[in-house]
């Protein structure tokens, strides 16, 4: 319990640090959202209109610390303001309509990559020098060396356009009403395959090799030899003794991995026109849409921190040693 509390304290500090960073960064950016919008709106506005717009959007001229206090207050009361680029939609609404897709994409990719990668790693380490061990790692590392977006574009054109095996855009067929029907879920699944696959392909090699290496290290632990000496069945030794211990570092990486996957998903979303927050963030940044940007960053960070916290709790469940600590 102490461990959990300690971690919780850490996450709170991390959260505070990131929201502060998030507050400060955009305020040091040159220009303001209105002139930025103006730059892109083909010179149609009059100076007075711009002033009016400034007022309308509430571009803040108060001292920074006042804004900061306000901001902190808002963050903890869940008020993230109104998006500037999507004015007058509240930031929460913009995010809530999209974050789900990002989480679905990122989460699916992460889980699949971690599970499959770890399984492959376990098998590779268990059968040292076998087919999986010698053939897969170089291939996966090579694929993993490609940038996310490159692989995504390649896959999109090859499997989506040329071969036509998979849908090439969006999270589900346009016009379908989201519902908990098999049809809809299947449709979402079909749309998820390619984007998730590209993320999985890029990240799976790391999982596999990481697991393989820890597993090899674990295999030479005394308790594995002991398990062998006990005459246990090989499958049991592999899973209950070796893999069970070797997966502990993977569990930690899993939490960390989420942050990276959100990043990878961001690029992938742009390529597949996946309606997640990735492109929205880019847009918000380019439009200097502070509230949205802050809201997104906050949400992503909170999601990552929360996930890490959950992973920590899981870790405590998996590793009895930290429990009593």
């Amino acid at each position, binding site marked *: 319990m102490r461990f959990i509390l300690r971690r919780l304290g*850490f996450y709170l*500090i*991390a959260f505070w*640090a*990131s929201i502060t*960073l*998030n507050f400060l*960064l*955009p305020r*040091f*950016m040159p220009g303001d959202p209105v002139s930025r919008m103006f730059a892109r709106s083909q010179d149609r506005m009059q100076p007075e209109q711009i002033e009016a717009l400034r007022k309308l959007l509430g571009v803040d001229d108060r001292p920074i610390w006042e804004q900061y206090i306000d901001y902190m207050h808002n963050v903890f009361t869940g008020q993230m303001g109104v998006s500037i680029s999507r004015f007058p939609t509240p930031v929460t609404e913009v995010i809530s309509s999209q974050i789900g897709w990002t989480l679905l994409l990122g989460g699916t990719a992460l889980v699949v990559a971690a599970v499959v990668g770890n399984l492959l790693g376990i098998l590779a380490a*268990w059968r*040292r*020098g076998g087919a999986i061990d*010698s053939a897969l*790692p*170089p291939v996966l*590392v*090579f694929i*993993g*060396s*490609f*940038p*996310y*977006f*490159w692989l995504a*574009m*390649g896959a999109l*054109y090859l499997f989506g356009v040329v071969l036509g095996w998979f849908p090439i855009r969006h999270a589900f067929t346009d016009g379908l009403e989201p519902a908990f029907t098999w049809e809809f879920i299947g449709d979402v699944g079909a749309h998820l395959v390619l984007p998730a696959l590209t993320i999985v392909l890029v990240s799976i090699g790391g999982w596999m*090799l990481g697991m393989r*290496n820890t597993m*090899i*290290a674990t295999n*030479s632990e005394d308790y594995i030899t002991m398990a*062998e000496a006990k005459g246990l069945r*090989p499958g049991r*030794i592999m899973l209950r003794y070796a893999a069970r211990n070797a997966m502990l570092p993977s569990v930690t990486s899993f939490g*960390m991995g989420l*942050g*990276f996957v*959100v*990043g*990878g998903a*961001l*690029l992938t979303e*742009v390529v597949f026109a996946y309606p997640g927050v990735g492109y929205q*963030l*880019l847009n918000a*940044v*380019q439009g200097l849409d502070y509230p949205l*940007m802050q809201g*997104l*960053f906050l949400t*992503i*960070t909170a999601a*990552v*921190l929360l996930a*890490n916290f959950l992973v920590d709790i899981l870790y405590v469940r998996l590793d009895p040693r930290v429990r009593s600590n």
Partner: protein
Amino acid sequence: MTTALLKQPTQPTAVRKPNRSFIHGLISNKKALTGMAVMIIFIALALLAPLLFPGDPSRITAMASLEPSAEHWLGTTAKGQDVLALTVHGSRSSLFVGLSVGIASTFIGILVGLASAYFGKFIDEALSLVTNVFLLLPGLPLLVILAAFLPPGLGTVILVLVVTGWAGSARVLRSQALSIRSKDFVAAAVVSGERAGRIMFREILPNMASIVMGTLLACVIYGIGAQAGLEFLGLGDVSTVSWGNNLFWAGNEGALLTGSWWVFVPSGLCIALVAFALALINYAVDEVTNPRLRKIKTPKTTPTKAETSAAK
């Protein structure tokens, strides 16, 4: 037969510095060799680019969207630039950014890691907190925000990548430094009266050579990949020629849509090759320092199968 009772000075069997055997191990490792060969080719290309393709590589020199031919080995872009020239010149910025990011992040990582591990207590708590916070912040979103906030240019890209990339290396290096810190030879150095700086850099650091190298390589890979990602999103310095920018332009010009794969493939492949080569070296470093990871020769089928080892 009799036993020889010998009194002799121990004749060291291998009079080799441990570091030298590490390098030797690398040189005799196939993965490392392949990786290094690829890297050398790329570095040579980067250095020779101005000689091979003099002048501005983004100059418009030919008809647009030419397929690869004898004249333009990799064809031309939709603007009529020579793809090969762009690719070769692109290696300069990409490798430069990768190396700078790698070296800078590793350097910060070393400082933070060593200071954390050596001084411990409050300094360690504070530094690891900062490290962990940076580690948890979602990298790319932060990159995107940072990149938009600073004026464009390679310097910015490097700075941004270092800001988001140092934490990973610091964490790895800290844990390694911590384990070395707890070794008796550090305590022995303290007892013999060495000062903190000397202990950190002369006693602890030399024992981290392989992990420093591994971290460096990983950071370089990160740098190259993240630069490409940023530039692809148009957040890099669009006016430089680099692999990421080449891909950005390829995307802009609809290279894939028009079927101009030759514009799209080379830069991506180069990124992958460099990253792959570095990853190979990295795995080789792992293998050399941790012999258990080495590829094992599949045991020959000897008649007494029982002899080999414990059956699994």
